[in-house]
């Protein structure tokens, strides 16, 4: 490489490795980011993306390898040193403090000594300059997710970064917010700041980045210009095998099928001060149909899920299943009718983290295990019943366990989710209500889960899918509606609603 080219490079990573105990998270990674370049880092969960950027930001120390900034060898021991080299980072799970105000949040991450008042003015100016509107004296817990991300970005901008690392920034944003974010990123790149953009959304990478580095199992698989690679081949490189295309069911198949479940003017008060009130939610789902409920997180999805599953109760006729009024009945009764629920939080809500898969299976099906209804059979269990069931769930759904019958929290997110979905399918539900089924799940597992849902619908069952992932909603639902601030839009046939329409229904322009 000539000197001229070197001058264009801001940061260069050479043969960086990181091991945790026995596990090799980064295996001799080399990457080169030019000044003003938007460089995408692509990989599945566990491919080593997070570890790599944490090394760059000084959160974890690399085991081996070198980092060069402007051609000089550096060691980055902590985030403060990273910031002094001009590296800023916006985390996927925001590193904000909900109880503090915007300016207080920013104040503690700045290394210079300034007063709160001066900082508030500076925030307002920066916010205007980059068109990222924000109120400095508001508490973070009163902000929407998109606004919280703006706080993170402004926090980085105030330090005049030369490299901005963004970890999955769009996973929580509406389509319109994503466009706004991309405008800011392009403006930033034009001003000479490099951007390392981590994502597993292929279309986005094509759209925003000029270069992409693909990681798999801790290794660099490919590093190329985005104009020279198709999304399909990016996906194949990322997961290491061909991606199966999912086929959707024809849309008119269930026009005449009977109604499975109707929700009529369902109201719920907010659960906590930060919750959302549900306002007159109505919809119905026919057998064989998948209804997708889109929406930005925190708009009432949790409250809706709780109301549907029976964790919060209301009037009997708010929920009608076939002909039964069940709005005031508990979870156990609803499940006995053939409804199944998969809540959003898989570790701690859908499963008990500290007990084994067999025991988790037992908790789900215990009332079917006592055949004779006598006292002893209800107390003493026959352990092979639940272990037979859990083994068949594991085998049928390709759940990869580190050893036989592990604790629930020892499975990776994707495998645990496959187990949970499999467990619900095992109950042979008539209606499946599932929330964020593939959140944080890698592409392979996500597509398996989605095809299971499609199979279930093909078998004539009804599915309500609550998801933040628009691609997923489009991929498998027959009808789509949007939840915004506790209200639900009228369901529309998938082909008749565009992403822009959905963005408008999400209440963001």
């Amino acid at each position, binding site marked *: 490489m000539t000197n001229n080219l070197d001058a264009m490079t801001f940061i260069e990573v050479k043969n960086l490795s990181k091991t945790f105990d026995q596990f090799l998270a980064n295996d001799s990674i080399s990457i080169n980011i030019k000044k003003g370049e938007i460089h995408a880092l692509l990989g599945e969960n566990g491919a080593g993306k997070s570890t790599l950027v944490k090394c760059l930001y*000084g*959160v*974890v120390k690399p085991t081996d390898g070198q980092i060069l900034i402007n051609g000089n060898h550096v060691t980055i021991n*902590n*985030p*403060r040193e990273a*910031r002094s080299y001009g590296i800023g980072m916006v*985390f996927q799970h*925001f*590193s*904000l*403090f*909900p*109880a*503090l105000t915007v300016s*207080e*949040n920013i*104040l*503690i*991450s700045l290394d210079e*000594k300034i007063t*709160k008042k001066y900082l508030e003015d500076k925030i307002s100016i920066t916010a205007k300059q980059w068109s990222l509107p924000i109120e400095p004296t508001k508490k973070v817990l009163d902000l929407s997710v998109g606004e919280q991300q703006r706080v993170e970005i402004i926090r980085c901008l105030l330090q005049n970064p030369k490299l901005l690392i963004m970890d999955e920034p769009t996973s929580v944003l509406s389509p319109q917010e994503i466009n706004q974010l991309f405008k800011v990123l392009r403006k930033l790149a034009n001003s000479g700041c490099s951007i390392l953009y981590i994502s597993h959304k292929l279309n986005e990478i094509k759209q925003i980045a000029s270069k992409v580095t693909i990681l798999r199992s801790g290794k660099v698989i490919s590093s190329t210009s985005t104009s020279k690679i198709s999304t399909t081949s990016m996906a194949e490189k990322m997961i290491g095998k061909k991606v199966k295309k999912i086929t959707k069911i024809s849309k008119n198949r269930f026009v005449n099928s009977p109604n499975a479940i109707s929700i009529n003017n369902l109201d719920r008060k907010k659960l906590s*001060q930060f919750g959302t009130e549900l306002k007159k939610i109505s919809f119905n789902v026919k057998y064989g149909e998948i209804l997708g409920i889109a929406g930005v997180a925190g708009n009432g999805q949790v409250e809706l899920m709780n109301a549907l599953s029976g964790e919060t109760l209301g009037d009997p006729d708010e929920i009608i299943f076939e002909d039964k009024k069940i709005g005031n009945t508990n979870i156990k009764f609803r499940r006995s009718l053939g409804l199944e629920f998969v809540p959003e939080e898989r570790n701690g809500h859908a499963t008990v983290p500290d007990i084994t898969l067999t025991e988790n299976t037992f908790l789900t099906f215990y009332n079917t295990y006592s055949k004779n209804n006598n006292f002893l059979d209800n107390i003493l269990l026959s352990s092979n019943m639940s272990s037979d069931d859990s083994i068949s769930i594991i085998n049928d759904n390709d759940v990869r366990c580190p050893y036989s019958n592990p604790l629930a929290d020892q499975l990776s997110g994707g495998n645990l989710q496959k187990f949970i979905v499999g467990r619900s399918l095992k109950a042979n539900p008539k209606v499946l209500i599932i929330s964020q089924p593939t959140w944080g799940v890698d592409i392979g597992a996500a597509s398996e889960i989605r095809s299971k849902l499609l199979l279930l619908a093909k078998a004539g069952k009804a599915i309500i899918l609550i998801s933040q992932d628009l691609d997923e909603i489009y991929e498998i639902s027959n009808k789509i509606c949007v939840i915004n601030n506790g209200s639900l839009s009228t369901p529309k046939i998938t082909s008749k609603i565009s992403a822009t329409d959905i963005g408008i229904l999400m209440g963001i322009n």
Partner: protein
Amino acid sequence: MENLLITILLTSIPILLAGLGELVTEKSGVLNLGVEGMMLCGAVAALGSVLIFGNPYIGILFGAIAGILISTVFSFFTITLMTNQVATGLGLTIFATALTGLIGEPFVGKTAASLPKLEIIFLSDIPYIGKILFSNDILVYFAIFLIFFIHFGFQNTKIGIIIRAVGDNHDSAHSIGYSVKLVRWISTSFGGMCAGMGGAYIPLALTPHWSEGMTAGKGWIALALVVFSSWMPIRLLIGALIFGGITILQFVAQARGWDVPSQFLNMLPYLATILALALISLKLRHNNYAPACLGKHFLGNK
């Protein structure tokens, strides 16, 4: 009347000091249930050092040091070794009750010198309130100063905001580059120092001789006050004053010969304080939230 108000103020000082310290500790995310024990350590250290050196100011110093030392034991177990905070805090109080009983044995029956009153010129001549507010010993001034110091510190200083941040979301604080454990060690030590001084105030100004368990549950009241005051220093003062006021009411009732069982009067300050603050926090529920990481371990970087 004037004397009565002064007595109420003095009675509330130990709870106020210990409560302010615990407030800072809890804001950083550490729940130290050992306040009662730390106060006892402060009390016995203060009394012993005054008996030896004869100077009540030395007593404050030793009380504070004793509080810091015993809180260090707590920090070492809970922050470094990551033992359960509730169990460790309770253990600390049980341990300190016995330890101070042992150390205090030789002091039984001896009387220590009390803290002198410091009149502030001019201010103490203000009619009605001058004598009450500006003719007190140094710890009263210190406690009142501390209320505003902590209130201001949490709002307007970087270290204050960092402490709140660590208590609010320790993973984020770590990811921006702050040492969660160090901040918690310092906050817990500050809590220990304040509890030690609050304990020291009892023999130095209220009852100048040793009796086992002489804090008589004031540490527990301080703990409850912190929660009911929604982690706000000014409200903590209100709670402490109510407690002091009703404690004094007992003596008035006895002196006037009211026909109320003494057990009921003994119970009253605790009951009234908690009721009053429960009502306050009911009304102001919307900003009544605990530090989100209170009582949680920080595991460091996994």
